């Protein structure tokens, strides 16, 4: 059931998404929209302790309830496996063990059973009736992270301790970011189908190929016997990159019962069973000369992870190359808590990391009595000092200059509370953004068809970001075929292997593969055009031909003298000329091939204005200006949409979001969308987005690095710096709450 998306012109042109009409009309089929004959419904039973053992599991009452097909748990789920180590970009998952592996509970909500019934309601009712007893212990969900483990050195140069000791001006502070839950509106869902030999899995996933490989291993079947389909996604934010246990449960149940099984997890399970951004605790030490030149930068960070899995939130990701300093050290560590396994969430590592680094830079600017932009410009490096490589394309200075102009930064007076407008106190803050650049390996196929249409396919997926549209654009650009004659097929693991939708890298990754596939298809047309006596260019060699404005002609003659490409196919009675393309992964750095060794990253500058009404302790974000340097922008519409969305998410990160683990039970206590607060429309500031649009040709022929996560990289620090400017309160532990601003922050949250 391929979803056909037909495209209507091209690169950089602001084309609307080609899948838009399907989405607004309800025609887009998401995973849980699949209804199959005889389909059963699964509802998991979750542990109500966070640490301890299951002492008994009694399903007898539940089994007798109407419509119950089976209740699976450790004793009867059948054999499930762990995966072998990941290879290349596939084979990843965060919670590494299969469901129900033992009777030990290590986090609140851990699955202990799954009920399968004729209807969802019956399954839900019976799930409540499964009686589980536990011997529980007090869980560890500490908010202050501590470890005795030796810190791991992530990056190091010079003698940072010594330089810090003798620095003229210093900042030494600790910053915290809380656990955050992705909460895409589409819940994690799967419809699992077993035909006696093979699985078809309709999944809400950001990586169909990875999902296929991991699911095959965990279910113990050959990879060709698993097909994963994810045509549309109601967003993921990283939470749907990898396999989570509910998918394995649903597939095992489908196999056991020989019926399709649908499992959609509940909103409360979203907070416990499918990952989150872990808490980070980061000590940052900056030392400068009296005039603000960095002499030492140290970042020592910890993040929490689950009891069994080692998830590292790489907070130092952007630190080592962001500023010029001869002395630097970044160390990391993880702390195992009774929480579910964390996972990548939009801008993993760099986003919480830059909150700390950029907040510290703002504190430094205050100490130096220097403009925060000037401080950053003063420390702009000429090359990547972590590895000595040149930057492929870096325009951070220009981001600040353009942004400052748009924002009106020159009007800023630095004294706390000194700016006012309409009776409100204004606060202005700014921060740098940085994010990875490069490519994942990707393959693609292009078919040029005799009816004049074309098809491009890739085993990647569109997670709502515009991938369908980008592939159509690339093919149109390479062939001149109108967008409305191009069909894009994605979201199926049986297609040529494509990348996970992660790292904001899909656009950059698919460009070379699609481009090569298009060339390949054109080559096939040349061969067809010269093959045999009846061929259009009988007696000529393929190398004699050229392809111009969709016409195939002799290189030494004008295009008009030739044929339209599909006429060649028609004449030869060939349905389609197919080409395939593949490009390897590329992330620059010292590991790259000699001529390709660059430091490849995206940059940006963000500016935030807050309004503060001390008389009612009301703080709101009123204005955000973002300037992004992420290479060539393939399509400004979805690109802008990504940054705007990130800004809204950043308002939530700075002021609202925090998953609270109840200290005695370990339960995420605000496990619903009323109590876990994200920014609403009313909290959305006016948002101004500018793309510098400098192509980075090291990455691909169009110079597109991709855009998405970068928009969240600086926003929290820009906002909390603005909060300091308005209120005089420096919030080092997110989110910045009312109680922090009115001097009552003893409550509820960790303080330094």
């Amino acid at each position, binding site marked *: 059931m391929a979803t056909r998306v037909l495209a209507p012109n091209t690169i950089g042109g602001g084309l609307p998404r080609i899948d838009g009409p399907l989405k607004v009309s309800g025609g887009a089929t998401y995973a849980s929209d699949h209804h199959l004959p005889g389909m059963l419904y699964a509802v998991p039973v979750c542990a109500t302790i966070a640490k301890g053992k299951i002492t008994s599991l009694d399903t007898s009452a539940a089994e007798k309830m109407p419509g119950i097909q089976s209740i699976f748990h450790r004793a009867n789920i059948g054999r499930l496996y762990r995966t072998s180590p990941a290879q290349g970009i596939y084979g990843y998952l965060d919670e590494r063990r299969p469901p129900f592996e033992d009777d030990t509970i290590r986090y609140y909500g851990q699955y202990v059973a799954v009920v399968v019934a004729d209807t969802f309601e019956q399954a839900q009712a019976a799930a409540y009736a499964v009686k589980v007893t536990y011997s529980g212990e007090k869980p560890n969900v500490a908010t202050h992270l501590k470890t005795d483990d030796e810190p791991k050195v992530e990056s190091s140069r010079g003698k940072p301790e010594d330089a810090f000791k003798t620095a003229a001006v210093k900042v030494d502070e600790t910053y915290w970011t809380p656990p955050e839950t992705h909460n895409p509106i589409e819940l994690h869902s799967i419809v699992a189908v077993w035909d006696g030999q093979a699985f078809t899995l309709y999944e809400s996933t950001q990586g169909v190929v990875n999902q296929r490989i991991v699911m095959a291993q965990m279910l113990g079947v050959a990879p060709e016997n698993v097909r994963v389909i994810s045509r549309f996604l109601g967003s993921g934010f990283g939470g749907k990159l990898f396999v989570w246990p509910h998918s394995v449960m649903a597939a095992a149940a489908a196999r056991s019962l020989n019926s399709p099984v649908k499992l959609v997890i509940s909103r409360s399970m979203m907070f416990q069973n499918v990952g989150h951004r872990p808490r980070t605790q980061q000590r940052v030490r900056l030392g400068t000369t009296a005039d603000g030149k960095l002499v030492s930068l140290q970042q020592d960070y910890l993040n929490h992870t689950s009891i069994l899995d080692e998830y590292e939130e790489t907070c130092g990701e952007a630190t080592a190359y962001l500023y010029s300093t001869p002395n630097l050290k970044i160390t990391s560590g993880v702390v195992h808590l009774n929480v579910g396994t964390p996972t990548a969430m939009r801008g993993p590592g760099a986003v919480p990391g830059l909150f700390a680094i950029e907040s510290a830079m703002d504190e430094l600017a205050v100490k130096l009595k220097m403009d925060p932009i000037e401080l950053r410009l003063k420390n702009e490096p000429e090359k990547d000092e972590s590895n000595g490589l040149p930057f492929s394309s870096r325009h951070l200075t220009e981001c600040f200059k353009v942004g400052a102009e748009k924002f009106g930064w020159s009007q800023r007076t630095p004294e706390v509370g000194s700016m006012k407008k309409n009776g409100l106190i204004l606060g202005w803050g700014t921060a740098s953004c940085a994010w990875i650049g490069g490519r994942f390996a990707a393959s693609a196929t292009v078919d040029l068809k005799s009816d004049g249409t074309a098809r491009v396919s890739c085993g990647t997926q569109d997670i709502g970001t515009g991938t369908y549209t980008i592939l159509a654009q690339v093919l149109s650009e390479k062939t001149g075929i109108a967008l409305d004659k191009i069909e894009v097929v994605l979201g199926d693991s049986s297609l040529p292997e494509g990348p996970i939708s992660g790292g904001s890298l899909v656009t950059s990754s698919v460009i070379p593969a699609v481009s090569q596939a298009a060339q390949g298809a054109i080559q096939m047309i040349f061969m067809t055009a010269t093959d045999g006596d009846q061929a259009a260019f009988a007696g000529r060699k393929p190398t004699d031909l050229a392809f111009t404005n969709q016409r195939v002609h002799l290189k030494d003659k004008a295009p008009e003298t030739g044929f339209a490409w599909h006429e060649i196919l028609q004449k030869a009675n060939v349905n389609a000329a197919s080409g395939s393309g593949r490009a390897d992964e590329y992330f620059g750095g010292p590991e790259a091939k000699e001529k390709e060794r660059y430091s490849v990253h995206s940059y940006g500058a963000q500016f935030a204005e807050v309004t503060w009404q001390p008389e009612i302790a009301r703080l709101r974000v009123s204005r955000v200006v973002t300037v992004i340097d992420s290479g060539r922008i393939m399509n400004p519409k979805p690109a802008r949409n990504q940054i705007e969305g990130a800004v809204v998410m950043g308002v939530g990160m700075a002021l609202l979001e925090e998953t609270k683990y109840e200290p005695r039970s370990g339960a995420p206590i605000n496990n619903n969308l009323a109590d876990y607060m994200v920014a609403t429309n009313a909290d959305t500031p006016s948002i101004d987005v500018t793309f510098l649009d400098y192509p980075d040709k090291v990455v691909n022929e169009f110079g597109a690095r991709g855009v998405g996560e970068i928009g969240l990289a600086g926003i929290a620090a820009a906002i909390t710096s603005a909060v300091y400017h308005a209120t005089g309160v420096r919030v080092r532990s997110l989110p910045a709450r*009312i109680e922090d601003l009115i001097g009552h922050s003893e409550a509820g949250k960790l303080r330094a």
Partner: protein
Amino acid sequence: METFKYTRADSAAQAVQLAGQSQTAQQGAQVRFVAGGTTLLDLMKLNVERPATVVDINRLPLDKIEKLPDGGLKIGALIRNSDLAHDPTIQSHYAVLSQALLSGASPQLRNMGTTSGNLLQRTRCPYFRSTAFACNKREPGSGCSAIDGENRTLAILGTSQHCIATNPSDMNVALTALEATIHIQGTKGERDVSIQDFFLLPGSTPQKENVLEPGDLITYVTLPASRPGAKSVYLKLRDRASYEFALSSAAVVVEVADGHIRHARVALGGVGTKPWRSVEAEKALEGKTVDPRVFREVSEAALRDAKPQSQNGFKVELAKRCLTHALTLATKSA
């Protein structure tokens, strides 16, 4: 969610008779009325409410707003919150009520929620809403998980050692400042209860939140005639700009003559175990000049008995700022 029987009442009498079968009208009721369902169904899905019978009262003719001979207003129990908020008389004469309603929930929820349902909405205490925890309100005698737990949003006024849950409604705060009366039809006939007496403090029986007995149907709410010179304001403070319950709110009705306060009614929300009428503030305001410093003193008086918990100490200061500012707004152009 558990299996339940659904019936539709065609008359108030029938509704009363059906609900009269219940052993209690409080937590654990075997029979529940459903109006908009935005509280009830939510809690049924969480297994916090487990009625065996749900009586749909949406067909009862209780959806009108009528003027009373004494100049007051009679508000049907089943008027939707959004309709009530946009009613021209409410907007012109009882602005505080319209503002309170519009500050609550979301447009979708307000389109469903009703006067009586809003009056009876349940606390948002997270432990009440999850059967995995001890909670005296849900299971009397089991203990209160909030006192030593997550209590940032809970009450600082009217609490007991058994329960510190906040009454979350915005509407109730406005109705309290407006001195509303609740009209009830029960198995023994009809009766009127002032909103002040309608809600109960938790004391040692937090499961009992109001005076309703089995069978009791709220039929309408009346408001006394509005005072011609009075101005009213609802101010709600919270973390985000919409779709959040009050951390602190204030409903004030004030009449100013010659720079002095002639009449004042003050109620606080987000801080009390019931919609919190502050007689202390009203007394402190009587006859005073319009002056922010006075308002701050009045706010101090209103919060004098506040008992903060481990995480909600900031609410004391927030409530003071809220009341001070609400009074400032209500007396601005007067």
